[in-house]
């Protein structure tokens, strides 16, 4: 039971996909300019991650190793398209805010990464918990960054004007430059919270990456340092 709980909770802070594993940074930087976008993106990713982890884990003994990447991508793309259609039909304002980044969830490293690293090697129940935990961690990271960037950068909170800040706000925080600043700051905060005990296991260095064979860098000099960003 404790083990199941740890699978669920590790994605929140200790192995937060965005702040510790440094995956999925593109949508993070783009969608944290407002809390509404951050929440929308986070919830969409939780849905896709949960569904794809379950399906891929259920099919893990069926999918031959040679076609595993195409198979994973088809499954992930399917769920992303389902989310797109549901959002477009029932929450069109969120659909237009998320725009292209909704499509980009297909190639979000977190989802393919968890499929490769976890779902393909664990039971359906464990994979579901992992998907939930990682998705929640992603959402948490996005919300934390969006809180800073929207309130201090635009002076609004979920679109509502904040009394003092709407007159004095740091517009740079909503620009990409500011985004990187905030990203670094929140990462540093996470290191503080985890007391620097970031996971150094092999699975988070080059060997664990789905592109290792193509990349060419993974062959040498991967002593786990990559994980301790």
């Amino acid at each position, binding site marked *: 039971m404790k083990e199941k709980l740890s699978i669920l909770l590790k994605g929140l802070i200790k192995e937060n996909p965005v702040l510790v594993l440094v995956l999925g940074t593109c949508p993070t930087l783009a969608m944290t300019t407002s809390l509404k976008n951050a929440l929308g993106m986070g919830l969409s990713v939780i849905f896709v991650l949960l569904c794809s982890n379950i399906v891929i884990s259920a099919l893990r003994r069926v999918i*031959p190793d040679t076609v595993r990447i195409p198979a994973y991508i088809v499954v992930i793309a399917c769920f992303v398209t389902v989310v797109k259609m549901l959002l477009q039909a029932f929450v069109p304002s969120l659909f237009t805010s998320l725009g292209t980044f909704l499509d980009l969830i297909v190639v979000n490293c977190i989802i393919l990464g968890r499929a490769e690293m976890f779902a393909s090697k664990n039971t359906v129940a464990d994979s579901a918990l992992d998907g939930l935990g990682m998705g929640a961690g992603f959402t948490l990271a996005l919300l934390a960054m969006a809180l800073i960037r929207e309130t201090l950068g635009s002076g609004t909170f979920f679109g509502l004007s904040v009394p003092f800040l709407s007159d004095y706000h740091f517009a740079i925080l909503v*620009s990409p430059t500011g985004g990187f600043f905030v990203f670094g700051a929140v990462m540093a905060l996470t290191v503080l919270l985890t007391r620097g005990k970031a996971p150094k296991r092999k699975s988070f260095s080059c060997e664990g990456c789905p592109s290792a064979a193509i990349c060419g860098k993974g062959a040498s000099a991967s002593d786990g340092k990559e994980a301790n960003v």
Partner: protein
Amino acid sequence: MKKGLILKSIVVLSLICLCTSSLLALTNLVTAPAIAESERLATLESFKKVMPGAENFEEKTLSKSYDGVENAWTCEKGIVVKLSTSGYASGLVIMVGLTYDGTISGVVTMSCNETAGYGKQCEDAWYQQQYAGQTKDLNGVSDISGATKTSRAYRAAVQTAFEVLEELKGGEGK
């Protein structure tokens, strides 16, 4: 690669694709009406903004393709044209309302991917409102400072709407 493995790979991948396509077809069945409805409502909303007080909008097919024009509607007061163009970035969608006597009744920026603080100001009320009452020469319209590309593209799009007016005006016999 063993023959058995090739066959298995093909079969498994095909089955996965079949199942995912079925799921998508099902979702599409459920969501398509809602999507069409929300798009229709959005269009109606924009009609109210560019040509307030008018009803009976009828979509028309145009004799030729005008630069950026996606749809055109006529009503009793004039026409509404939907254009999609590129300013600094693509995806600048504008609705232009023109009365039959050749003045702009209103413009609305439906969507844009322009730079915040610069081209994105085309979404602000001040920029859109200045078009109301203007004629084809757009003399009273001031560009957004620091956003030449966006401003130029916007003007060009509005002026293309006037070309559509020429065609549709003839049809209404006014």
